[in-house]
Each structure stands twice: as structure tokens, then as C-alpha cells.
């Protein structure tokens, strides 16, 4: 009897703590539905009683192209990251290359370089190549956030594939390429999902590369859409917050559909940009 009592008590505390932690998220939603004339009310409305969709109308009118660009860039980053990292993971996990340890070390170090420094280097290069304000340029830059992490994840996952399986494939005459494509890749589904999720999320959320390499371009991602909003019309916070809500949709989807992959990614080691 007493254990059930304490258990409910703990659940109550847990709910309270979670509510406190997620209050900013609630506030973003609340403000996104608030009418312009109520925006500077004091004290503020705690619930969107006189809710409006003005903010979301502004998103549809003005922000759709940004969202589309972000989607293209994020998907491009996912493909590029996986294409480079998956073969590397296979080699490091299963083929024991000479110098593999050194390469893993370089990847670990690469992960620690601040994005702002990378951005400055990319800027000078893109300026010369005329690749500033281009979508492919931003995809390449965004992928640098994810590639080292992706190689580490692929290596860790592929290390767990039983050697007997690969051996069987080889004795049946499959070459390295075929073994990789027909056996290793299909068995690495979890790694592919984890890597794709993080690559998508990081690219979708990127602000540093977008603002330095893509500012003022014809195709800007949603992070710049929000940034311009904050800079331009400081008063329309329902529109700003509505855009923020829409920009958070991938986060929500990932949390609902693929939460276990997220936890796996975090604990697999060095994450968080």
C-alpha cells in the first residue's frame, strides 16, 4: 500500500518538473496564438483565450519557401553524410585498416572544432568559387557537423555485426563491395536511422553556416527566416513564435516516432553541437 502511495507522489513531482522544464515550449505555443493587441498586456494571458491564427497565416504567406529550402538542405545533408560515413564505418569496424586508429582520432578532434571557425574558412573558399548563397554549398558545410559523428556511430554499430556472416558471404564469392552493399548495409538499419535523424536535425537547425554562407541568398533556410523576422518586425511576436513552432515540427516528429534512436545516439558518445 505504502509503495503505491510514494509512487504516485513521485509521479506528481515528475510531472511538475517536466512542466517547469517545458514551460518555454508552452509559452512559444501560447504566444504564437496571441492576438497583436494582447501581446504587450500586463500581466500576459496565460492561455490563448482569444486565440488567433494570424501568426500561422503569416507563416504560410511568408515562410513556406524557407521551410522548403530547409527541407532540401536537410535531406541533402542526410544523403551526403550517410554516403561518406557508412563505407568508412564498415572499413573501421570490419577491415582493420592500418592507420585506422589515427583516423578515428582525427574524426574525434574534427568534432571539437567550433562551427564559427569552419564557417570563416568556408566563406573564403566559397567566395573564390562563387559558391556563396548556394544550396549545395550549404549542404556541404552542414554535413561537416554530422560526418565525424556519423562515422563513429556506423563504426560502433557495424562492429556488432557477426563476423561469421561476412565470412559466409565471402566464401560464397561476394567481394567487399557486394558484402558491404547486400549484407552490412541492410543489417545497419538502426545506425542509418540514427545518423539520418541527427544529420537532418542538425542541418535543419543550423544557423552559423546559414548566416555566414547563405545570408541574403535567393534560397534561405528557415533559421534565417526566423532571424530576419526578429530583426525586421519586432512587434509581430505571434508570427515569429508561429514560425518557431513550425520549425520545431521535425523535433516533435523525431521525439514521437524515433525516441529510442535519439537516446542511442546520445549515449553512443560525443554528440551535441
Amino acid at each position, binding site marked *: 500500500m505504502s509503495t503505491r502511495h510514494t509512487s504516485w507522489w513521485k509521479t506528481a513531482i515528475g510531472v511538475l518538473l517536466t512542466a517547469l522544464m517545458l514551460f518555454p515550449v508552452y509559452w512559444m505555443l501560447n504566444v504564437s496564438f496571441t492576438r497583436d493587441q494582447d501581446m504587450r498586456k500586463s500581466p500576459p494571458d496565460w492561455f490563448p483565450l482569444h486565440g488567433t491564427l494570424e501568426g500561422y497565416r503569416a507563416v504560410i504567406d511568408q515562410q513556406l519557401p524557407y521551410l522548403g529550402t530547409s527541407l532540401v538542405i536537410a535531406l541533402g545533408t542526410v544523403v551526403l553524410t550517410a554516403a561518406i560515413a557508412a563505407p568508412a564505418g564498415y572499413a573501421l569496424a570490419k*577491415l582493420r585498416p592500418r592507420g585506422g586508429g589515427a583516423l578515428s582520432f582525427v574524426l574525434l578532434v574534427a568534432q571539437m572544432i*567550433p562551427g564559427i571557425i569552419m564557417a570563416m574558412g568556408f566563406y573564403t573558399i566559397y567566395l573564390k568559387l562563387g559558391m556563396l548563397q548556394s544550396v549545395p554549398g550549404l549542404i556541404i558545410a552542414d554535413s561537416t557537423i554530422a560526418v565525424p559523428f556519423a562515422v563513429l556511430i556506423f563504426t560502433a554499430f557495424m562492429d556488432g555485426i557477426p563476423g561469421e556472416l561476412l565470412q559466409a558471404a565471402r566464401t560464397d564469392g561476394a567481394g567487399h563491395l557486394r558484402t558491404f552493399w547486400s549484407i552490412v548495409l541492410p543489417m545497419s538499419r538502426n545506425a542509418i536511422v540514427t545518423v539520418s535523424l541527427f544529420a537532418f536535425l542538425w542541418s535543419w537547425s543550423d544557423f552559423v553556416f546559414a548566416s555566414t554562407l547563405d545570408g541574403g541568398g535567393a534560397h534561405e533556410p528557415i533559421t534565417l527566416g526566423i532571424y530576419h523576422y526578429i530583426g525586421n518586425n519586432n512587434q509581430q511576436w505571434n508570427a515569429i513564435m508561429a514560425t518557431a513552432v513550425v520549425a520545431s515540427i521535425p523535433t516533435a516528429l523525431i521525439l514521437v516516432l524515433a525516441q529510442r534512436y535519439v537516446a542511442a545516439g546520445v549515449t553512443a558518445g560525443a554528440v551535441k553541437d
Partner: protein
Amino acid sequence: MNDTAQIPEDRSVRDGDGAATVVPSRGRAGAEPTRSRPRSQQWAAWGFLTPVVIYLGVFYAYPLYRNIDLSLRNYTVRSFVDGNATFTGPANYRAVLDDPTFMPALTHTVVFTAASLLLQYGIGLALAVFFTQHFRLAATLRALFLVPWLLPLIVSASTWSWMLNSDSGVVNAVLRAVGIGPVNWLTSPSWSLASVVIANIWIGIPFNLVVLYSGLQSIPASLYEAAALDGANAWQRFRHVTFPLLRPVSAITLLLGLVYTLKVFDIIWIMTRGGPVNSSTTLATWSYRLGFGNALPAFGHGAAVGNLLVLIALVFGMVYIRVQRKQQAS
């Protein structure tokens, strides 16, 4: 073909989770002495690694090289385009070290990093311990705690900006209700750094919670039972069992957090742009402002500040890697 057929044989020894049994390869046993790294496998391995090696060279090493080059030359907007800036050696570094912004930026970086780390870790650990207790909804609530970490930084930063708004922000509304005068969170030099630290702690708690929680899972329950039998209360159990056994995970979490917090840029830039009057400027935001934030960019100076930041990050990065290797070895 002979060589490739040989490989699986000795691979199976290594992969068979510690079991020392060699899986016999079909009818080929003894045909050739087993080598640990057959040459054809080496070729295949580096074939698979070629994309990532080229990638690292072109998209990591080269931008970094360009950045170093940038910091050693006297770049103006004109020479930036023409590409014929004069080599000035360490002049840019001397200039930024002598700049009146340098000391404040360095101090703010240290304060921002230390305050963020300490509170993220403290709160994350408390929550992790709380969530190890079994209660209804624990898993769901723990998953919800991930939200701040998964949100795009611009979303978090702009939400916090509006919450901390002096006149219409919800934080000041709450403070007013309990009789505390309005705080100019983002517009007063004495509060701006605290404001960005608060937002950054909020973003960093989930990471600490998840990693420390998984660390707690690996502490055997029997140790707690033994301590409880010896009459240790909850605090004593935490103090003498949990905390010491969690030390390796704590070290990794803090060091990794340190490397990542040093380079935080988005949150500060979006919330305060490092202002007012540099009161929340860190090395990262200063570097960005020098290179991109002014009408007259000082790329050389910006690159110099950036490289100093890389240097600091790498020092702690090496410490992290050392600690991690040592833990794996033991």
C-alpha cells in the same frame, strides 16, 4: 580470391564476443598461413575510407588552413576578393590580444562556460537520480526532457528572448507578481550574461540527464542494498556509492560539455548579439562580429580570435580523449 576467402576466418575469432573458437572456413583451413592484415583487405579498407579521407582534407583541413592563412595576413575587403593580402605574421594576434575587448571576452567565455557546466551538471544529475526511481510515467517524462536539446537553437533563443523581454516578458510578469521590480534581462549590461547562461543551461540539461542516467543504470543495485543494510540513508548512499562510482561518467560528461560550451555562439548572438556594450561577448561571438558582424569586416582579426578559440577547445579536447582512452583501457 584466395586472400579474401582467408579473411573471415580470423575475423570470426575477434568478433565472436570474446569466444576463442575459430570458425572453420569451408575446406580452406591451412591452405595459407593466417595473416592478420592481408594486403587485399588493406586495399579494400582504404578504398572504403577514401571518401571520408578526401572529405576531411577538402572540407575540414582546407578551411582550417585558410583560416590560419587568414589570421596571418593583413586582409581588407579589397584584398579579400583579390587574394593578394600582405603577410604580416603574428600582427593580427598581437592586435586582438591588445584589444580592450579581449579580456572581457575571455572572462565572459570562462564565466559562461563554468556557470553553464556547473548548473547543467548539477541539475542533470539531480534529475537523473530522481528518474532512476521507479514510478509511473517515468520513461515518458524523461523522454519529454529531451525537447529543449532537440529544438533548433534559434527557436530556443528567440523564445527566451521574448520571455525575458523587459516590458512584456513572462519572467518579469512573474517577478512583478511576487514584488520584484522589472529586471532588464537582455538590455542591461549587468544581466545580459546571466540571461544567456540561463538559456544555455536549459538547453544543456537534457544531455547531462541522458548521459548521467545511463551511467547510473550501470551501478549494480546490490551495492545500494548492501549500503542500506549497513544503515546508510538516501543522502549517504548518494554520497558514498552513487557519486564515487559515477565519477568516470561525470568526467566524460563535464569534459565533453566543456568543449561544446566553449563554442556556443547561436544562443548568445541571437539573444544579445554579445551586447549591450560587449557585456555578453565571448570569444565565439567576438570572432563572428569581427568577421561578419560589421560593415567593415576585419577577417584577419576574426580568424585570429577564432584560432585562439580552437586552441583552447583542442587542449580540453585532448584531455577528454585521454580520459576516455584511460577509462576504456581499465
